[in-house]
């Protein structure tokens, strides 16, 4: 599947996420509250800014969209009701649908399988694997 670019790509992200990026007024509340914020590049508010500036390709190429654990604290606290977790998920979905995985289930080791609760594997593969 050929991934569109520019405005067409932005429209796809908005459609899949059900969010309107121009609703965001860049207060930064999402980034301030994100428990992964210091490791997430770009953090939620900057990611939304990239979309507002019509640079969706940069967000799709970023590591940040793969750092979101969908805890939803950003959207819950957003004064403009923008749900960044859904935007990150839409970006990941577009990549996964081009048959590119972030996490390869074959790399999970036996000790990890033995120890980590299976809900984590299922969730991880659903969010990060084709």
């Amino acid at each position: 599947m050929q991934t569109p670019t520019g405005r067409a790509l932005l429209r796809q992200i908005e459609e899949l996420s059900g969010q309107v990026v121009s609703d965001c007024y860049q207060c930064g509340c999402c980034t301030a509250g994100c428990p992964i914020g210091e490791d997430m590049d770009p953090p939620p508010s900057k990611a939304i800014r990239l979309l507002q500036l019509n640079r969706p390709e940069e967000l799709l190429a970023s590591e940040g969209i793969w750092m979101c654990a969908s805890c939803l604290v950003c959207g819950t606290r957003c004064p403009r009701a923008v749900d960044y977790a859904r935007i990150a998920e839409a970006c990941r979905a577009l990549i996964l649908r081009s048959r590119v995985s972030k996490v390869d289930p074959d790399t999970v080791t036996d000790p990890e399988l033995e120890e980590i609760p299976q809900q984590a594997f299922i969730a991880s593969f659903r969010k990060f694997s084709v």
Partner: protein
Amino acid sequence: MKYVYYPGCTLYTKARSLDACARKAAERVGFELVEMPSWNCCGAIYNTASDDLAAQVGSVRNLAKASQLGDKLVTLCAACHNVLKRVDDRLNQPGNEVERNRLITFVDEKFERRVQVMHYLEVLKNDVGFDKVKEKVTRPLAGLKVASYYGCLMVRPKEVLQFDDPENPQVMDELMRALGAEPTKFDFKTECCGGYLVVNRRDVAKTASKRILDNARAWGAEAIVTTCPLCQYNLDKLRAGDSSIPVFYFTQLLGLATGLAPEELGFDCNSFDPVPFLESKGLLS
């Protein structure tokens, strides 16, 4: 009172103690969990892409199946609860009939009614009542300072979960008080532990979990209590050496307070052995 019960995958293996204590403690406080037959995976996480219907089907089937058995479906795992609740909400949103009709054609089971997806904590609070729970306490958890950690899945999205205040929930704190323990305040009751990032970014989950543990300790907590197998794992297993305090399932403390024998409390599921701590508090005698 009998309830249709959905345990989910993790409660059959790595979170056995969450399940076993819940079933036995339910009998102590006056209700019964009847496991629904032939349940399947809930999906473990709710997929939010607007056109992603396939990811919802597993939970649609569970809900349909449960609707043939009763009008309430009780969950324990925070992830199962979150997914079942959100899929139920999606099926029943006004204006979403076209999508609903597409979703229900994927499953053989027919919906008899809309089931109310309830967490075990909601059964204790709303149907049993914490006063009644308190009456059943035979071993009060006196002197136990415990931080109730809710994580993300129980409280968000708040419009759908409608569980408690998403910033400062109280249900588990009230339960701990009913059991005779002393719930401590802390700042990160609903902060994410890193969740499933533990699979590919263990470092990130470790940082997030350590922050939660350190904060609970700074507020004077001697133990943490949770309802999510993944939160329990992340907090209990990814701990840095100096932040060690026991991380219990709330059902373990409910079981302890209502008189279950120590060997019924499933402490072998806890990575940090809580037995010496409980003995030092005089709670196992």
